[in-house]
């Protein structure tokens, strides 16, 4: 189904990503998102301009940040009359925000907007325990002093310990890593293959930085000019020396690290971009979300495999029709299990309802400027990082080149999209 209008990626901007507890330890989600927006505004001369909408979000969010994106707009150089919305779909947030803006543009509800995301694992909210919270709320409701004291008397010493956020699936009690360890074991993903993928991610990202690829995609922030998790000199041998942290094969080297950072993508209707003298890198062709039944035993992070199947069917495309594949590296094991699933006749038949497997992809076209293992993964920012990178790479390849973007998310969800070079 052709879209009424073309939404194109004009460009992107992100902060360098930094290991949690590092250079951005004092920066809040609001600070980081503002920095990403201001860099984008500066790059495309949008200071004082009113955009149709900015969509962004964060996964680790303070209650005071209920209007995080709108507040970031007000802190930014954009016109204060630019509306904004907070979206949240776990690690799919950044990509979902891009899709949201692209859809509005395609439907004629907007001409220009920004999709993005931010996360600070350093400045994460710490909550009070459930017991303390209930006691405080009861005391607040109490109308008389004795009743208030009675409510407060319900507080136990054990209630006073603060509660840090956890990346745990509420319905299984398993961390994301523990889930992926089960998936990796079921799919027979070897330690060596994971370490190899991680090493390639670092080497690809390092090469992209060295070649100046990120010069118009990243703006330095708080004295950081490059992603700090990147280890250009890492190797399969060095990665092989690390101890497993999830299951028998997943290590800190082949899993993403907790990261702080923000990313934003400028999108516009194609004619609007031309009329305003802005570049058009790639068109947002289509997008799809999917979810799996992980409490029912499905692999938590393989929802993108389902989403891609539906997206290809709707577009009448094959998995081999892409110049580039950007598969978010939540864990090396996730990428490898997704590739195996697409090659598996049984999975494609029983789970995706396909008579033939989607097939293998050319891994020389996979994450060619590195992905989350090397860059880091500030949850909600990752999708916007990938879209900006993919759009630029596709544009370099010339008109018509297509790219597939895929991001897995907590809750057994996945967001995928197709971009096509303009």
């Amino acid at each position, binding site marked *: 189904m052709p879209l009424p209008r073309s939404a194109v990626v004009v460009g992107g901007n992100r902060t360098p990503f930094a290991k949690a507890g590092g250079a951005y330890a*004092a920066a809040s989600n609001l*600070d980081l998102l503002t920095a990403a927006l201001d860099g984008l505004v500066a790059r495309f001369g949008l200071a004082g301009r009113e955009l149709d909408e900015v969509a962004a979000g964060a996964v680790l969010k303070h209650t005071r940040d209920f209007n995080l994106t709108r507040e970031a707009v007000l802190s930014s150089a954009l016109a*204060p009359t630019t509306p904004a919305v907070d979206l949240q779909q776990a690690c799919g947030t950044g990509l979902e925000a891009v899709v949201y803006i692209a859809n509005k543009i395609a439907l004629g509800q907007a001409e220009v907007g920004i999709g993005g995301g931010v996360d600070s694992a350093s400045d994460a909210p710490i909550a009070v325990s459930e017991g303390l919270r209930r006691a405080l709320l009861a005391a607040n409701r109490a109308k008389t002093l004795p009743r208030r004291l009675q409510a407060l008397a319900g507080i136990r010493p054990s209630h006073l310990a603060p509660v840090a956020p956890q990346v745990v699936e509420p319905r299984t009690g398993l961390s994301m890593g523990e889930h992926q360890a089960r998936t990796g074991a079921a799919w027979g993903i070897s330690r060596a293959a994971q370490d190899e993928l991680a090493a390639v991610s670092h080497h690809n990202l390092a090469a992209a930085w060295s070649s100046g690829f990120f010069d118009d995609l990243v703006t330095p922030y*708080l004295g950081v000019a490059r992603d700090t998790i990147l280890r250009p000199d890492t190797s399969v041998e060095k990665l092989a020396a690390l101890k497993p942290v999830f299951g028998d094969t997943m290590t800190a080297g082949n899993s993403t690290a907790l990261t702080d950072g923000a990313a934003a993508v400028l999108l516009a209707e194609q004619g609007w971009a031309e009329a305003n003298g802005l570049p058009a890198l790639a068109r947002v062709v289509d997008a799809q979300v999917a979810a799996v039944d992980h409490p029912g035993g499905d692999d938590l992070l393989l929802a993108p495999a389902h989403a891609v199947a539906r997206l290809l069917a709707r577009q009448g495309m094959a998995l081999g029709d892409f110049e580039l594949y950007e598969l978010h590296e939540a864990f090396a094991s996730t990428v490898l299990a997704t590739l195996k699933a697409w090659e598996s006749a049984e999975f494609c038949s029983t789970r995706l309802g396909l008579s033939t497997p989607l097939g293998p992809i050319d891994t020389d076209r996979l994450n060619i400027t590195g992905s989350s293992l090397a860059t880091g993964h500030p949850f909600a920012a990752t999708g916007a990082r990938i879209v900006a990178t993919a759009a630029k790479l596709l544009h370099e390849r010339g008109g018509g080149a297509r790219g597939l973007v895929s991001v897995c998310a907590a809750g057994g969800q996945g967001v995928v999209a197709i971009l096509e070079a303009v």
Partner: protein
Amino acid sequence: MDAEVELLPALPPPGPLLAKALVPSLDRGPTRVPTRTVLVTGVAQDRARLADYDRVCGFALRDRVPPTWLHVLTFGLHVHLLSGAGSTIRLAGAVHVTNRMRLHRPVDAGEILDVSVRVENLRPHKRGALLDMVGEVRVADELVWDGVSTYLAAGAKVPGTPEAVPREEFVPTPPIAIWRLPGNLGRDYRRVSEDPNPIHTSRIAARAVGFARPIAHGMWTHARLLAALDSRLPGAYVVEASFARPLLLPATVGAWWRPEPDGGWRAAVTTADGAKPYLVTRVS
């Protein structure tokens, strides 16, 4: 600069100096202030302290630093100049009445600064004397920021016709924002500004100089108001501020800002009803 320059190895922490500056000068002669310039070169900005400063004053954490932050960096030199033997005026007893800063270009938190302060323009006032602390911040040889802090030293005697303090025009205006300033604000700002004057943190010290409660640091109020305008300000501007009356903590205050036809701003921190100003500023 043909006057004498005193080169210090590092920015002096104002704390110990201020303690000294609390002791009145025993010099009974005519009012004197130092004629030398104090200079510290190669000052690296402390990003952790800047982040804390931004948080306390309401600024977003950016690489471009607020002009009030550069003022804070000069403050130790203000105290240094007005605590030594060359000065009969003590900063601890002086009242900051007006302030004027020019940001010549955006200054990055990573830039290495040369910071200097000198005293200028000692002049009579009906309650004592006025003097200007003139600060300059340079990057290499480029002047990137300068600031003039005018203090009133009550009781100081300077010959001549008393001058009035020029005041920014103020018209009572309904506030745009209402800010609730907590009682511990003085302690928070003391940490980031390193200005330990106890009238901002101690009720006893505040009472000793005639205030019922501790008063907010004027440069906090100034910074908070600039932070409200932050994303609307250009990369270079002049901001002039008049401190109209002490702001006793805790407090609920009003604030407003409005654009001027010339592209600048007028802004003020007022009583909650907007009737009386604590701070009146103009950005141009």
